[in-house]
């Protein structure tokens, strides 16, 4: 016994660090986190640094050299830099809320389908297939033109349209988990279905969930920006990176900053979250293979 304890004492610190910590050991995850944090801080504190108001008129539209501005004026005679500094908050909040809805719904449905299997699984996945069979942009487009663009609606449509994809992924991940014996063990104890799904299955799909969360956040940002491109936006001229690209796109040759700044910001943000997601997926892939001995 004593020898086992001695071996044990050494073994305690051998617990693999949590998924998150492991992921953040990777270079790419660190870079991603730095990028994402950078952009999030621009979005959060930007409004306090802006030299002009978000809708304040500064000079003739699309003028590059305007005294007092660094990047000139945009399509509507507003300061490009100030618009940029103001524009991160909305799109981030929209994207995060939309993703949360998608993740919550998608996870619940995916787990339920995976756990119940059989007809319930079939019914849930068929229903989601119906939603999925409308491409995201289309779905959003139709729904938004039905009710008119509003932030709540955009959040819901974008969230709902990501739901089936998340549900699919989560179901895929959970199918493997529900086959495992600890689920049987919980069932043998007569645990309620709800508890089995959320307390036993859910914690074991977190790696897929994290990867998916990042991916969907990226998609949501892109989708919201694309909707703005197609002219669906609740408040025209609201400072919003996605909308900003669309607004200033026409004048790209005369005033490139109005497009370059938000595009770079969105790209860096999505690259950041993408790298984090990538890190997670690499680490979790390692975990999934971990069982393979020698």
């Amino acid at each position, binding site marked *: *016994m004593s*020898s*086992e*304890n*001695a*071996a*044990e004492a*050494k*073994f*305690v610190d*051998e*617990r*693999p660090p949590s998924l998150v910590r492991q992921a953040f050991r990777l270079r790419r995850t660190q870079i991603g986190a730095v990028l994402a944090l950078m952009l999030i801080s621009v979005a959060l504190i930007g409004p306090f640094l802006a030299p002009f108001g978000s809708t304040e008129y500064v000079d003739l539209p699309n003028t590059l050299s305007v005294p007092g501005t660094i990047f000139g004026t945009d399509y509507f005679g507003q300061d490009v830099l100030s618009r940029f500094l103001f524009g991160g908050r909305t799109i981030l909040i929209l994207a995060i809320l939309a993703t949360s809805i998608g993740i919550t719904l998608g996870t619940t449905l995916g787990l339920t389908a995976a756990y119940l299997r059989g007809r319930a699984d079939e019914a849930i996945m068929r229903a989601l297939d119906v939603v999925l069979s409308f491409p995201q942009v289309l779905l959003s487009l139709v729904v938004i033109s039905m009710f008119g663009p509003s932030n709540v609606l955009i959040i819901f449509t974008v969230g709902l349209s990501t739901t089936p994809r998340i549900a699919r992924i989560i179901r895929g991940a959970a199918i493997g988990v529900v086959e*495992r*014996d*600890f689920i*049987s*063990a*919980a*069932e*043998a*104890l*007569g*645990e309620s279905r709800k508890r089995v799904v959320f307390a*036993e299955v859910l*914690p*074991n799909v*977190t790696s897929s969930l994290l990867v998916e969360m990042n991916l969907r956040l990226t998609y949501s940002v892109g989708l919201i920006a694309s909707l703005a491109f197609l002219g669906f936006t609740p408040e025209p001229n609201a400072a919003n990176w996605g909308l900003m690209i669309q607004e200033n796109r026409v004048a790209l040759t005369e005033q490139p900053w109005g497009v370059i700044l938000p595009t770079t910001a969105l790209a860096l943000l999505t690259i950041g979250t993408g790298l984090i997601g990538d890190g997670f997926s690499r680490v979790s892939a390692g975990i999934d293979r*971990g*069982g393979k*001995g*020698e």
Partner: protein
Amino acid sequence: MSNAAGLRIVDLRLNVVATGNDIVDEINLTIEKGRVLGLVGESGSGKTTVGLAVLSHARRGVEVAHGQIFCGDTEVLGLDSEAKRKIRGGLVSYVPQDPASSLNPALRIGLQLLEVLEAHNFGGSDEARKARIKEMMAEVLLPTDDEYLERYPHQLSGGQQQRVGLAMAFACRPSVIVLDEPTTGLDVSTQEHVLKTIRQLTRDHGVAALYITHDLAVIADLADDVAVMYSGRVVEQGEVSEIFKNPAHPYTRHLVAAAPDIASKKSIVGLAGRAQSPGKRPVGCAFAPRCELAEDACRVEFPKMVSVGGRQTAACIKANQKVAVSVASSKAMSTRTRGEPAVELVSVSAGYSGNTVVHDVSLTVRKGECLALVGESGSGKTTVSRAIGGLHREWTGSIRLNGRELKPMARQRAIADRLAIQYVFQNPYGSLNPRRTVGDSIARPLVVDGKSKSGARQVVLDVLDKVSLPGSYANKYPDQLSGGERQRIAIARALVSEPEVLVCDEVTSALDVLVQAAIVDLLGDLRRQLGLAMLFVTHNLPLVRSIADEVAVMSEGRIVEVGPSESVIGNPQQQYTQSLISATPSIERSMR
């Protein structure tokens, strides 16, 4: 039999690339042509790493640090990559552990055979190659018609797949062949055939064979020589008869003592602790921390190989002190009067989506007794046990607990009934929720029963003690534990609700032999102490003799023979049981 060395491994060391820690070191082995060397060891001891090195291959993250490997006259480690490719499958070939995953599911077996020949330019013409394939198929006792070669791997049985693997390995007439646990996962009768084929082929073609396994009985049956590995080192080697009759290294002695044997009623003895992974190994003899003979000298440097006599050598400073393992602890099997029936199955039939796979099974598990339910894979034994545990939906007949009729599914059963029957699962890696502390997992049945978490705490500590684990384990996560420890935790979870019946479903099949012995030991103790009724489901016939009072043999969904284990195994009445027993390799039988 030629005496020339077919395979010679000289001072081989492989490292983990990232850390430079050795996975295996100081490996020196020689196999003569036409002989089989059995390489045994627990999982993690480095057997496969050595086996792959013979093909000059190292897995991702592993590299050869130094050493030489001669296949015939060719040193393979120093070859350039094109030359390496050429010797693989040609000069030296490999038979993998799991034929199902090692045959490409997307390619027809004919093509998979043919491409080896093509890659090594064997035969010169397509006709010659086709003829060679047919010849090989015949040698491994498989059909040679074209239709058969057109099949995909999944259309073959496990045994057939492994024969294809053998055919592939022998196709280019290699002079060295590495077989990596080729029969693990096969049923005994299939295993017997495959082993016979291997023996035949190596002898006929004068091939030097390195046979990697953890199963001592298979080695005893098949090999000429044995090398025992522990923590990346060869600790003992010699001829089969020498090693099994007179194991010199303490580890080897433990291995032999822990191995159940179908040929005798043997009390198997486990050993606590486990081998450490690369980088964490102790200085000196790696086995020292677990060795009852260890002294300070063992912890200074790795012991040199010393000759024990004949061809036998062992890496132990006490190799020549003949000390028996304390097998004395052998606990007498209970011979008291029969207990009351705890669980009774009457005419239980069960199936999956309409297909009946269990027919009319009637069994009785008595209090304080262990009933072993044995059978080959697919015999329906697990379905029966899941029905008892309330985990299988589709069954008819009657299952009674203490005379009370049980509902089919656990959720429909009363809490008391649910807690009274506890299930221990086959795979300790899958039966504990990896995201939950061990303590939480163990306490769960209590919480379901309505106990408070704090009240449960003390019970958890008690039950951990019962499975011989310290209370500090309650805060650990499953991935911090070894397989044996996990299985103890799984047993602890089953015990926490003070059940009357324990259903053990192949609980030792994923464990190394020493750990298996320890778990079996534990289960026996618990049964005696707590008066548990136990259903022990297994495919491992030798084990049955060491644990069960009674045995029921299942085949194709039916019970073919039931009776006291000694009489069923020692003197089987049914032809099926007889063939099963004769196909099971045995050390004792081989040593006779």
